[in-house]
């Protein structure tokens, strides 16, 4: 197999890697906010349960969660296994990343001094207005570096989808490496991941700069 064919095959896989990446972000970023709000709920039961769920999602390997989401229903209830593996893969990734994002959001929200809430109340803002117009814009600025960290990790974590035989870039890389007894596909895949992350880094840097409007 020539280097070109190899690269083309891997690039096909890169499309599926991108699908996991963007769909995961699409679902996990908002879901993380919901989880963060539940986690900070004044109701002890709600915050306790959320805390427990987060601890499981952060305390067990993502690979295990992938297997559980994909094959768990079959072993537990005799249900079918999804033909399109993108669905269980994105579900597992989105849930897992939402747990991490939730904790980042919580850290950001709790870093805002209480005085701002009091001031907003004096000025006649409702609770929702205070959160959306005053707290959230500051939170977003503060947590962006941490979010970038997670997003960069996500790019690399997509390779774990090989455990459920989803044909993303790493899975294909493994298959080529195996049939050609060669390490080259892994090097090519490594370059692809690195470039992908370079783009992510650049984009996040731009967003950070744009939000830095007080300086």
């Amino acid at each position, binding site marked *: 197999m020539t280097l070109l064919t190899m690269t083309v095959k891997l690039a096909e896989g890169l499309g599926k890697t991108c699908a996991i990446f963007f769909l995961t972000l699409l679902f996990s970023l908002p879901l993380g906010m919901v989880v963060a709000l539940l986690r900070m709920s004044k109701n002890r039961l709600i915050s306790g349960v959320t805390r427990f769920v987060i601890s499981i999602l952060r305390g067990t390997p993502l690979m295990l969660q992938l297997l559980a989401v994909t094959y768990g229903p*079959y072993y537990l209830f005799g249900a*079918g296994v*999804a*033909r399109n593996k993108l669905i269980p893969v994105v579900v597992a990734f989105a849930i897992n990343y939402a747990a991490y994002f939730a904790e980042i959001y919580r850290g950001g929200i709790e870093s805002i001094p209480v005085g701002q809430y009091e001031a907003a109340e004096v000025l006649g803002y409702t609770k929702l207005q205070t959160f959306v117009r005053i707290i959230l814009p500051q939170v977003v600025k503060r947590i962006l570096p941490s979010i970038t960290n997670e997003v960069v990790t996500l790019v690399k974590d997509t390779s774990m989808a090989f455990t*459920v*035989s989803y044909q993303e870039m790493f899975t294909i890389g*493994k*298959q080529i490496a*195996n049939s050609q*007894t060669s390490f080259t596909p892994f090097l090519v895949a490594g370059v692809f991941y690195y470039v992908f992350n370079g783009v992510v880094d650049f984009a996040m840097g731009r967003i950070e700069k744009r939000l830095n409007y007080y300086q």
Partner: protein
Amino acid sequence: MKRVFAFVLALAMVCCLAACGSTNNAASADRDKVTFTMGVDPEYPPFSYLGDNGQYTGFDVEVCAAACELLGWDFQVFAVNWDEKLIQLDAGECDCVWSGMTILDSMKEAGYVISQPYYDNTQVLLVKEGSDITSSADLAGKRVAVMLGTSGEAMLADDLADLAASFDDLMICNSFLSCFTELGGGSVDAVFVDLPVAAAYAAENPGFTVINEALGAEQYGIAFRSGDQALCDAIEGAVAELVSNGTYAEIAAKYPDISPDNLVFLNK
């Protein structure tokens, strides 16, 4: 302070030297004791798998253990990552790959020492009971799973490429279990797999049938690093002795899914 440091450093050096000395002694006293590490796929019943007692077992493992006992060697099992088995062999993580491994021409070309074949294998199709697939001709437009790094995968990419082209989709799975789970869960219609593995799975798990059609003949052998011909000869000699004293047949009798008709040494 400096003095203390120098003293500690000197002490550390002495300890290192002492450690070297002691290992040397141990090695010379135990020079005749060879430790033989067999590399196996830990998920390849009935040839090699994790037994009920938590120890690796299976036909190949038992034969190797008996051969090592005969040779007076220490015996160890090392679980390899199947699609990287030859790299791990080269790296010295194990001394051979012996785990229902199909002999491929590419292995000989790459210089590995390959033993005499000991098992005639065929690839078959495993389907769900009551499936409308009764032969490979029915596979057109169906979804088929095969395990990564198996000879079945190589076959579908090469000799049986035309057959593979008729599939709706060929899913390359990460383990046999994941192939079988995909089949059970209905995301694929058939699994292309080695006969003994399929037979063992169908025997353990109701609801699956092996289709009686041999799709490719191949033979199992043992791979050693290039230059390890002596090691290969020693193992082959020990196995020959196990065959002649009946131990080999005894071990084979424990694994009903391995047909004695296919065991080359029992048919000589």
